[in-house]
């Protein structure tokens, strides 16, 4: 199976999910909280003509205020911590947080040091972890699908409570 075929199958499933829950698209704000830029290479790759994630309803937005989800990379450095929290607070509820890459998941090779914060979940609730150094584009898509399922559960819980 070629990469294109893989994407077609995964992408259609993703598209269905997004349509059911968000109506149109899942809006993502990516935050680099101190990554080595490897993860950014792969997030950018999702926009190239071979993956072209916009066709499945995934949209990178310029402001956290327009976002359904924060896609956070990097171990969360001391110098990015404040900016990340501000971005989190600026994202409207209900929101999703995805920790992308080994560093965002648990600090990765950078671990816990004077400058590095050993992962996103030390600073905010994380809904889905996408491991990999960096995760391949297919892995990111898969992670997004898991995250969307989780949001569906969240919404259902809210409905039951109401």
């Amino acid at each position: 199976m070629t990469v294109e075929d893989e994407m077609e199958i995964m992408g259609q499933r993703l598209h269905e999910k997004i349509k059911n829950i968000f109506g149109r698209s899942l809006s993502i704000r990516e935050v680099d909280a101190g990554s080595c830029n490897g993860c950014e290479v792969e997030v950018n790759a999702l926009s190239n003509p071979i993956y072209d994630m916009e066709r499945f309803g995934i949209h990178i937005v310029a402001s956290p205020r327009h976002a359904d989800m924060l896609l956070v990379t990097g171990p969360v450095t001391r110098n990015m911590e404040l900016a990340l929290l501000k971005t989190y607070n600026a994202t409207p509820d209900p929101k999703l947080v995805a920790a992308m890459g080994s560093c965002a998941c648990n600090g990765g090779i950078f671990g816990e040091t004077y400058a590095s914060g050993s992962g996103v979940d030390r600073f905010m609730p994380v809904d889905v972890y996408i491991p990999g150094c960096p995760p391949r584009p297919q892995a990111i898509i898969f992670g997004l699908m898991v995250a969307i399922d989780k949001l569906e559960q969240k919404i259902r819980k809210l409905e039951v409570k109401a």
Partner: protein
Amino acid sequence: MSEEYIEAIRKKFGNLILDETVSNNETYLTIKKDDAVHICDYLYHTLRSALLSMFATDERARDGCFKIHYVFSCKGDAFIIIQIKIEENLPKFTTLTHKIPSANWYEREIQDMFGLVPVGHPDPRRLIHFEDWPAGLYPLRKDFDIRTKPERVKGEYIYRRVEGEGVYEIPVGPVHAGVIEPGHFRFSVAGEPILNLEIRLFYTHKGVEKLFETMSIDKAVFLAERVSGDNSAAHAVAFCQAVEKLAGIDIPPRAKYIRTILLELERIYNHLGDIAGIATDVAYPFGAAHANRSKELMMQLNEKLTGSRLLRGMNAIGGVRRDIGDKKEMISKELDSLQKDFRELMELLVSSPSVADRIETTGRISTEIAKGLHVVGPVGRASGIDSDIRRDHPYAAYPKLEFKVPVSKEGDVNARTNVRADEVYESITLIRQALSRLHEGEIRKDSGKIPDGCALGYTESPRGETFYWVHISNGRIERCKVRDPSFCNWLAIEYAVLDNIVPDFPIINKSLSLSYSGNDM
């Protein structure tokens, strides 16, 4: 060789040299602290040696002092390293920035990480630490525990102010609109034209140099790959070469060729990404899609060859971990189609008047500015600096291969695009040559125990010269200084944007292809 340089220094400053040691192509001259400025100035201005790096080491345990090292490049593949000692009770040294402008950030880095003060520095603000970092804590001192979590203190960062009627400021970042790394840009503008830009970086400072000191040598290769993710191969090879040099390991020829192929594959996908970025930023999505497609195909090739789209996990001390010789045919087939596609892409870009209109004369960096700041890599070459580590200080299989180093004098976005395009063609021919000479043989030598010592390792990454200075003691890394090319190139953006309009900033930024992570570490 460095002999004539050393001879000239001896003649002029003979009585000032306290100690002289030579190892491989590196000559270490220890001099008195107060003489550093004169000798460095003489090396730089009279002998025309470039200042490649400058860093400090904490040798209080062994020699009872700190040391500062100034690394100069000499013609004929040699390096001169000037060393000065600094006593702990007088942690000061005279700034070199007035003589050599490129010393600017190195000195501020030393001030933040070691607490050694460059006296007379024109901009003594903090560089790496933010205003909330407590005074008196210096992470690279040996008595600083890497796991310390200093409290945040109150403080203020003072930006340069431009004042006047109709002048206002535009703050941008650290979280940007696109998918890029974090940094803060503060523009002072009057209408559209930019009067001043101040950059503030180090948001992604992860303590990499300190982290090196806690790692085994083998594991440190993986850390080197993660200093600047898209330049993984160049960083890993530079680190490995430093260790191999000090241990006297001559890696097998087959490993040299494989490394060369990896380094050129890295250059190709990076340059394709930069050209795609420039096309995106001038609102030419067709060209961008074309370039991004080619980049993706190259990254898929990377994965097929190495198991990693970013060419990670291939390099090790003593050679490479995996053979790619059985995939020769796949590589040359991919290169054939890349060459055809890339030619078409460049024809499209060159023939589009709307592209030319946006990139010609935009973001100009004069040769004078580029030389002063020691701008490196394709950006430097586009501003008339004819330097390339692959040719000037050859490593891996480069001495056996033929290639041209494209240079342009214009210094604008157009020149930088063209230099990169020419380099893509050169990389294709380099890989073809390397493939044709890939003889049978082993790919890795056993490194054995690494002896004590220090050495420089260097590569020409897609962004330019990448330096590692590694000091090994008792089989552990005592100090590893990393100098990413972006550390040299970042300041150039403050000059490149002057008199340009704000909407052209993204194109200029992209054309400089700066790594935040490699700079901040």
